[in-house]
Each structure stands twice: as structure tokens, then as C-alpha cells.
């Protein structure tokens, strides 16, 4: 099941990269997010899974579709023929390199497993990582101000 989900994630990602229609690419990316969220659920990371589905598969896809509809006029992104032919070869090469060297390098590392964490998710999130939350608020505000600044009307436009 886990391998099937990982394969689904990679297939959706390849579709997102190589789809000539941007809208289909955005929807494939949402599919990849859903596969990733299912992997999170499977590994017991339920809160991260819920965030992945609601924010990444939901909000970011909506943002992508809004941007595509505001920018492109039914034009398709044409990829060069050479790139289309080259990509499967590159992908097979990458998989081979990954397969040949990954186990060799990672197998030499010391075991990661340690004692299980105690407490609830809320205690760790709100108590242990308070500084992260402050930084997140700052990042959200900076993102909002950036978007506001970019869409501000110039005085000459009015």
C-alpha cells in the first residue's frame, strides 16, 4: 500500500511537469498532494495530513488555477520534442543512480530510532515550538503585505 501511494505521488508529479495544459498540470499537482497526505495518514501524521489536504491540495490549487485563468488565454505550453524524448532517459538514469547509491550511503548511517515522544500534539506544537509560531505569523503578514504591495493601484491608474 505504501509503495503504491509513493508510486502514485511520483506519477502525478511527472504528469504535472509534463502536461502541456497548465490547468491539467495544476490538477495533477493537487493529486500528488492528496497522495502525499494519504502517506502522512498512513505514517500517523494526521495533523500534517489534514494541513496537506486543506492547504496544499485546496488553497494552493485554487491559487494556481486563479493565476492560470488570469494570465493565459487558452495557450498551451509547448515543450520541445528533444525534451520529451530526453526526459524518460534522464528519469531512468536518475532512478538507476538513486537505486545503486542510495542504499549504500544510507545503510551506513547509525539507526535513527529513539524513545517515543510523550505528550499530545498540542503540547509540542503550542508549547515546544512557540518561536516557530511567532515566525509563522511574521511570514504570513509579510506574504500579505507583499501581495498587497504588488496589486496596489498606482496613483496614475486611477
Amino acid at each position: 500500500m505504501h509503495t503504491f501511494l509513493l508510486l502514485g505521488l511520483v506519477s502525478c508529479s511527472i504528469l504535472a511537469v509534463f502536461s502541456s495544459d497548465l490547468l491539467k498540470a495544476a490538477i495533477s499537482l493537487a493529486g500528488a498532494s492528496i497522495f502525499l497526505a494519504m502517506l502522512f495518514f498512513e505514517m500517523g501524521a494526521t495533523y500534517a495530513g489534514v494541513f496537506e489536504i486543506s492547504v496544499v491540495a485546496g488553497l494552493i490549487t485554487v491559487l494556481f488555477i486563479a493565476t492560470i485563468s488570469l494570465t493565459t488565454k487558452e495557450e498551451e505550453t509547448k515543450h520541445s520534442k528533444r525534451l520529451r524524448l530526453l526526459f524518460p532517459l534522464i528519469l531512468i538514469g536518475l532512478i538507476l543512480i538513486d537505486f545503486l547509491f542510495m542504499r549504500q550511503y544510507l545503510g551506513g548511517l547509525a539507526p535513527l530510532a529513539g524513545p517515543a515522544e510523550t505528550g499530545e500534539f498540542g503540547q509540542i506544537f503550542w508549547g515546544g515550538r512557540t518561536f516557530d509560531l511567532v515566525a509563522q505569523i511574521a511570514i504570513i503578514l509579510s506574504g500579505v503585505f507583499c501581495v498587497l504591495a504588488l496589486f496596489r493601484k498606482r496613483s496614475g491608474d486611477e
Partner: protein
Amino acid sequence: MSDFWILNMFFVVLLFLIGLFCLLAMKNLIKLLIGIELLSKGILLALIATGFEKNTILTSQSLAISFIVVEVSVLATAMALIINLYRHTKSLDVKNISNLKG
């Protein structure tokens, strides 16, 4: 190292490489954003898989949530930039955005 973790890392590297390929080979601005998204998906999977392996899934989840928030903020800003650039150049091709080139 368990086989489960190594399997996850295999796919993390694969996702990362596909994202890098997209960033290097594509010329459409939205496709470049999709490449960044793929890189971030690889990082998220690495975070959660390592947390699962280390038995620190709660800390990993909180880090993943912070990462998702940063990702959304970056993407929203990048999309606003893309829309503004499109209004000026009427194109999404990175080759046409060379006005600031020295």
C-alpha cells in the same frame, strides 16, 4: 537503517530530482512554481518519514505544518509577481523577462 526509511528516501530523492529537472528545463513561470512545489513535497515527505523512523512524529508534524505555512506564503507572493509580470510583458516565458538584465 530500516528498509521502510530507505524506500521513502528513494522516492524523496526521485521527487527532488524531478523538481530540479522542472526548474532547469522549463521556461514557463507557472511550471517553475510547480517545480518548487515538487521540491517542497520531497522535503515534507523526508521530514515525516524521518520522524516516523525516529519515533518523533509529533515534532516532525509541527515542523511540517510550519513548512506548509512558509510554502503558501512564498507561492502567494510568487503568483502575485507572475500576474504583475504578465501584465507588463504579456508572456509567461522567462526568456522575455530580461529587462533587468545588466
